[in-house]
C-alpha cells in the first residue's frame, strides 16, 4: 500500500529546472534512498517532502493526505540534516524533547519519550551534555532521536553521514537501518554515496538531472543498470564498445574476438556498434576459471587496492578492468603479459540509452 506518493513533481528556481517530472510511490515502512551526484535534484525533492520548498507542479501525499499548502510544522515529518543542526543552546535531553515541547505534551510524557529515544540511540548517559561536547557521530545520533521523538509519519535523512569519519559512517548507517526496521518508519535517505545506498536501502532511486533514471532494489540497480548513467554511477563498470556481427544469433565482436550474448540484441544490424557493460568482479583469469566466454588481452596495469588487485587489460580498442581477490600467494600478472579473462556471457549487459 502506498504511503508516501510523489506524482509528477517539478521544481524550477527561476529559469533553472531542478526537478522534472519525478514520480515515486513509497510503501509504509520502506527505506528508500535517493542516490545521485550533487545537483541532481535529490535534496530538492526531499526538501519538497519536508515542505521547505514548494513544488512548481505535481502533488505529494502522505497517508492519502495532500501535503500542498501545509507548512513544515504542520506535516509531522522527521528530518535529519547533514550538519546535525542540533540546537546549540540546549543539552541533549532538551534537543530531543523540543518537538514534544512545542506540541504541548505533558512533562512526564516528554520525559518518558525522551528516555526511550535516548535508549534507542544508546546515549542515555549523555543527556546533560551540550552539542559542542559531543562527537560528530554522537551529535547525529541525537539528531536522529530528536527527529523520531514526536513519532513522525515519515523520516527524511539528508546526507546524514557525509560529515562523519569513514568508520563512524559505516557503524552509524547500520544503526540507522536497525532503528528504522525496529520502528517500521517510512524513510527517505538522500546520499551521493552508492555504497551507503546499496547497503541499507529497500529500494534505490538513482537520480540524474532532475529525474529518476531507475528505481529498484539494490541488487537490481547494481546488476541490471537500466541506463548508461546508472551503470557508470553505481559501482565500477567496464564500458565496452562492441561491433555487431550477427543480430539474429546475438553475435558480436570485441576487438576481433567473437562473443555470443544471452540477451537479445534487439533492432540492430550487422556492423552497428553497441555498448556493453561488465563488472570488474564478474570474470577471472585463474587457471580453470568457470565461464562460457573468454577474452584475451594484454595487461596494461595492475593496482593493489587492499582486498582486491585491479588489473586492466587491453582488448581491441577497449580497456577492461577485472578484480582478483588478494591472498598472500597471489601473483598479479605482469604488465605486457597476455591473459585470458573468463566470465559468463549473461554478465555482459547491453546498455541502451
Amino acid at each position, binding site marked *: 500500500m502506498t504511503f508516501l506518493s510523489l506524482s509528477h513533481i517539478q521544481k524550477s528556481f527561476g529559469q533553472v529546472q531542478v526537478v522534472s517530472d519525478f514520480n515515486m510511490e513509497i510503501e509504509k515502512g520502506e527505506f528508500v534512498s535517493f542516490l545521485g551526484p550533487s545537483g541532481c535534484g535529490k535534496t530538492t525533492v526531499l526538501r519538497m517532502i*519536508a*515542505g*521547505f520548498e514548494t513544488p512548481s507542479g505535481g502533488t505529494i501525499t502522505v497517508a492519502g493526505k495532500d501535503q500542498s499548502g501545509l*507548512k*513544515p*510544522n*504542520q*506535516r*509531522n*515529518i*522527521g*528530518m535529519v*540534516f547533514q*550538519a546535525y*543542526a*542540533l*540546537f*546549540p*543552546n540546549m543539552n541533549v535531553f532538551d534537543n530531543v524533547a*523540543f*518537538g514534544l*515541547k*512545542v*506540541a504541548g505534551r505533558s512533562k512526564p510524557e516528554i520525559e518518558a519519550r525522551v528516555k526511550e529515544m535516548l535508549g534507542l540511540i544508546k546515549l542515555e548517559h549523555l543527556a546533560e551534555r551540550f552539542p*559542542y561536547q559531543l562527537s560528530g557521530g554522537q551529535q547525529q545520533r541525537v*539528531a536522529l532521536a*530528536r*527527529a523520531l521523538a*514526536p513519532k513522525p509519519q515519515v523520516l527524511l535523512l539528508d546526507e546524514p553521514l557525509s560529515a562523519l569519519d569513514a568508520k563512524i559512517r559505516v557503524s552509524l548507517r547500520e544503526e540507522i537501518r536497525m532503528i528504522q526496521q525496529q520502528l517500521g518508519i517510512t524513510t527517505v535517505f538522500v546520499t551521493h554515496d552508492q555504497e551507503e545506498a546499496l547497503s541499507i536501502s529497500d529500494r534505490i532511486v538513482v537520480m540524474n538531472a532532475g529525474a529518476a533514471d531507475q528505481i529498484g532494489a539494490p541488487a537490481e540497480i547494481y546488476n541490471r543498470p537500466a541506463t548508461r548513467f546508472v551503470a557508470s554511477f553505481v559501482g565500477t563498470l567496464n564500458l565496452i564498445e562492441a561491433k555487431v556481427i550477427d543480430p539474429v544469433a546475438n553475435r558480436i565482436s570485441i576487438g576481433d574476438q567473437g562473443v555470443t550474448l544471452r540477451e537479445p540484441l534487439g533492432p540492430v544490424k550487422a556492423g552497428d556498434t553497441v555498448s556493453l557493460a561488465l563488472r570488474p568482479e564478474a570474470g577471472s583469469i585463474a587457471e580453470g576459471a568457470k565461464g562460457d566466454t573468454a577474452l584475451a588481452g594484454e595487461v596494461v596495469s595492475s593496482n593493489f587496492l587492499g582486498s582486491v588487485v585491479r588489473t586492466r587489460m587491453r582488448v581491441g580498442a577497449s580497456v577492461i578492468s577485472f578484480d582478483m581477490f588478494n591472498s598472500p600467494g597471489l601473483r598479479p600478472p605482469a604488465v605486457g603479459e597476455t591473459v585470458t579473462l573468463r566470465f559468463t556471457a549473461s554478465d555482459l549487459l547491453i546498455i541502451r540509452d
Partner: protein
Amino acid sequence: MNRALHTLRQRLPLTWLGLMPFVIFVLMFLVLPTMHIVIGAFQTRDGTFTLQNIIDLNTGTIPSSYWISVKISVASAALGSLIGFAMAAAVVFEAVPRWIKSPLLTFSGVASNFAGVPLAFAFLATFGPVGLVTLFLRNNFGIVLQRDFGFNILSFWGLTVTYLFFQIPLMILIIAPALEGLRREWREAASILGATGLQYWRMVALPILFPSLLGTFALLFANAFGAVATAIALTGSSLNIVPIQLFAQIRGDVLGNPNLGYAMAFGMIVITAVANVLYIWLRMRAERWLK
C-alpha cells in the same frame, strides 16, 4: 666561535628584546598613568593607604553624576541595541534587498567612530531650539518639541539621542555577524519539529543570540560611559555626568581634593572595565556555541 655564540643565545634567549620598545611605550603611556590614578585613589595626600576617597565618592554631587551617567549609558545602549538589532536583522534576513547589506556595514564602521565635538553640533543643528527638525515640526505640524514633549537637546534625552548616532552603527557592526551565525538548518529543524516562527525565536534563536546581545549591550554601555567630548560640547557643564565632572576636576580641582578626583576616575575605569570584561566573556560563550 660561532658555536659559542649559538649556545650563549640559547642560554639567554633574546627574542623578547624585540618586544621591548612596544612594552616600554605601553607601560609608560598607558599602564603606568592608569596605575598612578588607581593607586592614588587609595592614598591620602601624603601617600598613606586609605579607603576614604572611595567612601567620599558618596558625597556631594558625585553619586548623582554617576547615576545620571549610568542612566544615559543604559538608555543609549538599550535603544541603540534595539534599533541596531532591528536594522541588522532587516539586512541579514533579507527583508530588504541584498545589496543594501555591504554599504550599510561599511557605513556603520564609519559612523560608529563618530563621537566627538562635530557630532554634538550636528544634533544641535538638527534638534536644537532652531534646528532643522525642530523648525520643521513647528512650522508644519505645530509641534514644539520643548513644550509638547519636554525635549531639550541639552538634557538627559538630548544626550541619549545624540549618543545613539554612534551606538546604533556599533550595534549593527557587532550583531550582524552573530545574526549571520544563526544557521538556516536550526530554523528548518525547529519548523519540521512542529515549532512556529515565534517558538523558534523564543526557544532557539534568542537564547543563542542572548550572550551576543548582552555582551554588545555591555560594550555599548562602556562606549557611552566614556564619551567625553560629545557631552562637553553639547551641554557644556549644564548636565552633571561623570566625564564632565572629572573634566572640571582635572582642569581646576573643583572637588578640592586631588585624590578624590583619582577615586572618580577609578570608578570610571571600574565601570567600563566590568562592562568590557562582561562583553569579552559573553562573546567567548557565544563563540563556543557558534563553533
